Structure formats: C-alpha cells, structure tokens
C-alpha cells in the first residue's frame, strides 16, 4: 500500500488542506501530524485502490452500469470514516469490507429488479490494446461473469477475493467477519464449482484460451 509511505513525506500545508480534521485546532496540529503519518489521504486511497475495488465489484456481479454507484457509495463511506481509521486495521481489509457490504446491498436491489443479467458489452480501455486482445478480454470477462453467476453469493465473494484479487485467507476472513476455516471451506467449494463450470464451458466449446 503505497499510500502509507507517501503521506508522511508530503509538505505539511497541503496535507493539512487535504485532511478534513486537520483544521480543528492549532493545538492539535501535532496529533494530526502523527495521525497523518499512518492514515493516507483520501486522494491517495482513491488512487491506490480504485482499480482493485472496481474490478472486484465487477467480478462480484455488479453490472458495469451500476459500478459508478457502488464505487461512489464505497468512497463516500471511506471519505466519512477515513479520519478515524487510524491505520489500526489493514486499509485494504477495511476497503474490502465496505465494498462487500455495499455490493451485497446492491445485489439485493438488483435481484429484485431482475436486470442483473446484464453482461459487459464492451471493454473500454484508454490503454488501447489491439482489437484481438480486446476481444479476448471482453470474451473472458463475459465468460467469467457467466461462470461466477453459477456460484452462490457467499462462495463467489470468497472466490473473487482469493482467486482474482489474491488476498490471503486471513485477510478475507477479517474483511468478511468470518473464521478462516469458514472462508477456507467456502473457497474449496467455490473452486470446485468454478472448475466444474470451466470444464462445462470447455465442453460446450464456447470458449478458447485467450
């Protein structure tokens, strides 16, 4: 998490400008200074974690059209609570916890509305990969979405965090408020189901290795 290291080095005035609580009282400047040494600024959190959170949201089944709302919701919580975060827990764990909560709320709404079947129609990317690569990516995204949709929500969450985001089991457990054992057994089931779906897809010949 690069956010941690950057903050302490930053010039005080701009740090004060960016930390909402920093203007409370001159007497507290020193305390704030200490806090800032641990807690990254909102902008830093945003820059460092936006991509991963967006990607996770997508993989957790949030339709692309709803990603803006989900990410905004996540970062509003972050904005409101960052000052008291104090670096006591791993920042990433905290963010994942917020994301999972927001996504599960969002899932509930979308299940009701029945329009969560939307699959990404396009892969927009300013890095402009070649058309073939882009196509392969889009195909992979679509296919992965189909396969993940076959998992139940709990398994899917654990699977995405472990396999796509490569988070360690204890961190996933902390983020989800579960015991590592529970996470592990869900993950095992999820992996099995995932492999089965991959095999099925291959059998249907609907997908070629990118």
């Amino acid at each position: 998490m690069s956010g941690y290291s950057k903050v302490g080095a930053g010039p005080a005035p701009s740090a004060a400008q960016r930390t909402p609580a920093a203007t409370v009282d001159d007497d507290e400047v020193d305390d704030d200074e200490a806090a800032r040494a641990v807690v990254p600024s909102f902008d830093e959190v945003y820059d460092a974690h936006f991509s991963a959170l967006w990607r996770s949201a997508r993989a957790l089944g949030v339709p692309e059209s709803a990603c803006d709302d989900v990410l905004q919701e996540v970062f509003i919580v972050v904005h409101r609570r960052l000052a008291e975060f104090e670096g006591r827990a791993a920042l990433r764990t905290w963010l994942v916890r917020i994301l999972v909560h927001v996504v599960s709320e969002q899932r509930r709404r979308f299940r009701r509305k029945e329009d969560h079947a939307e699959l990404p129609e396009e892969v927009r990317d300013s890095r402009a990969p070649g058309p073939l690569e882009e196509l392969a990516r889009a195909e992979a995204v679509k296919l992965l979405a189909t396969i993940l949709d076959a998992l139940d929500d709990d398994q899917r969450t654990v699977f995405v965090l472990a396999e796509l985001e490569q988070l360690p089991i204890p961190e996933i457990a902390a983020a989800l408020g579960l015991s590592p054992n529970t996470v592990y057994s869900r993950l095992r089931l999820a992996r099995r189901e995932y492999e089965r779906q991959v095999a099925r897809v291959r059998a249907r010949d609907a997908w070629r290795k990118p």
Partner: protein
Amino acid sequence: MSADTGTPDDGPVGGEGRALLDAARAGLEPSEADRTRVRRSLAAAIAAGAAAATAGATGSAAASATAASVPLGVKLALAAALLAATGAGIAYVEHVVVRERDATRRNDAPVARSASSAALPGVGDARGRVAAPPAAQANDGAASVALDRAPAAAAATNPPADARTTRVSAPHARATSAPSLHATSDERPAQPSLAALSDELPAETALLRRAHAALAAPSAESARAALEALDEHARRFPTGTLAEERDATRAIALCAAGRVDDASTAARTFLAAHPGSPLAHRVRTVCTQPPAPH
C-alpha cells in the same frame, strides 16, 4: 496443478480456469474515464454533503446524518436559508436544483443510502465504536470550526499553490458536475481534489450566508458587513464554486449600502459575465426597487 487433468480439492485454481481469471482480470479494470467520472460525481456528492453540514448551526448528530443522507434536500434548505432574505431565494434555489439534479442524477439514491450504510455494522464492529455519528460530527466540527476562525487563519490553510489548484478545479467541477456516461478524460488531465472541494465549499457557504444574514437587516451598516463578507469571499475564493452567487449578492449589497452607481456597475459586470444566470433577473432589477434606508 492443472485443471486440465482434473482438479484436486485444495489449492488455487490453475490451468484454463486460471487463464480465464487472468484474462478477465485485465478486462475488468476500470478505464481512466471510469476513474475520472466516479471521482467527479464523488466530489459533487461530498461537496454537497459538506455544504449541508455547515447549514446545521446546531451541528447535532441528527442534523449531520440528514445532511449526509440527503445532500440535495439539505443543500436546497441551505440555499433557501441563504437567499430567501434577499428575495433572490427562488432563483437561487432553482439554480441549485438544476445544478444538483444534474450532479446527482445518477447518484442521489446511492448517496442517500450511504448514510445508512455508513452505519455499516461490520465497519462499526471492527472498531468497536458507534458508526456514523462520531465520524460525521468530527468532520462537521472541523468544517464549522474552520469557518469560525479568523479569516487570516483560514487563509493560511489555503497556501497559494493550493489556491491555484482549486481555482482551476472548483469551477470546472461545477461546470461539468453532471456526470456523463461518456466522460471525458480528455477534458482536463488534472482531477479536482475532493478534499479541497469539500474543505472549501463550507467556508464559501459560510461567507455567503454571513453576507445574506447581514442583508436581512435594512441598514447601511449591515450592508457594509455584507460587503465585507463578500470581499473576503472574493479574496479567498476568487473563482470559487459560489463566485456567481457572490457577484450577484454584491450588486444587491452595494445597492443596500446606498452605493447606487457601484451597484449598477457590479450588476452590469455580473450580467456580462453570467448572462444566462438564474440570478440575472434579480441583478438586473437591482436598485430599481426602493433603496434601503441609509
């Protein structure tokens, strides 16, 4: 291990399954446009929340919660409180409605919801604290305290470098706050600083509120107090988010102070700069009504 040869129960996914994950991973990344667009709407939502927070002079947890949950509603209330006294209220409110509606068109529901999700059980549990109110209060407190401080102190938190940044970013955020689905990484490379925006809007709002509160009293002296607040706003936030409102209010305040010529000059300047402003009518008719006693 390989998925091709049958999968053991344990261990990470491999083989084709892994390849699919890796390929999809790249495709799931947000584009620069996604990143920028969300940041913009966030800036708008947070700024609206921050402005609303200063409206509640009571600063109670309840008020804060409301402020955070209904930024649009509260901003409207704030706007009404701000300008109702001068008769420009309605125009201003419409102005804000339009702006806010655009800004929050895609977002108002989630923002509203986020107040409750701020009280995330999980998040609160981990900290062993009550969720939203303390955080909200802490921030609101910071904002209001900052506002109440002497101008010099507040100005000190706006070193020139930062002021330059926000001078560029604030009006931009305002002009383009309606998030477009097809936004727009080409518009501007630099992104508005959320923190700067949410720090400044409360201060801007407070100054304008001070001006309008002063204008509510029909005396030349209170008109001068209003002008002082507007001068301070002009000094600290020359192109701030509420610059348009400030300039309109200045024309009104000059008239109230009995400086009719200055008022017409200010009005002309304003109308030239903001011909389509919702405040234009109010400004155009400035000093055509019976002047305040002085």
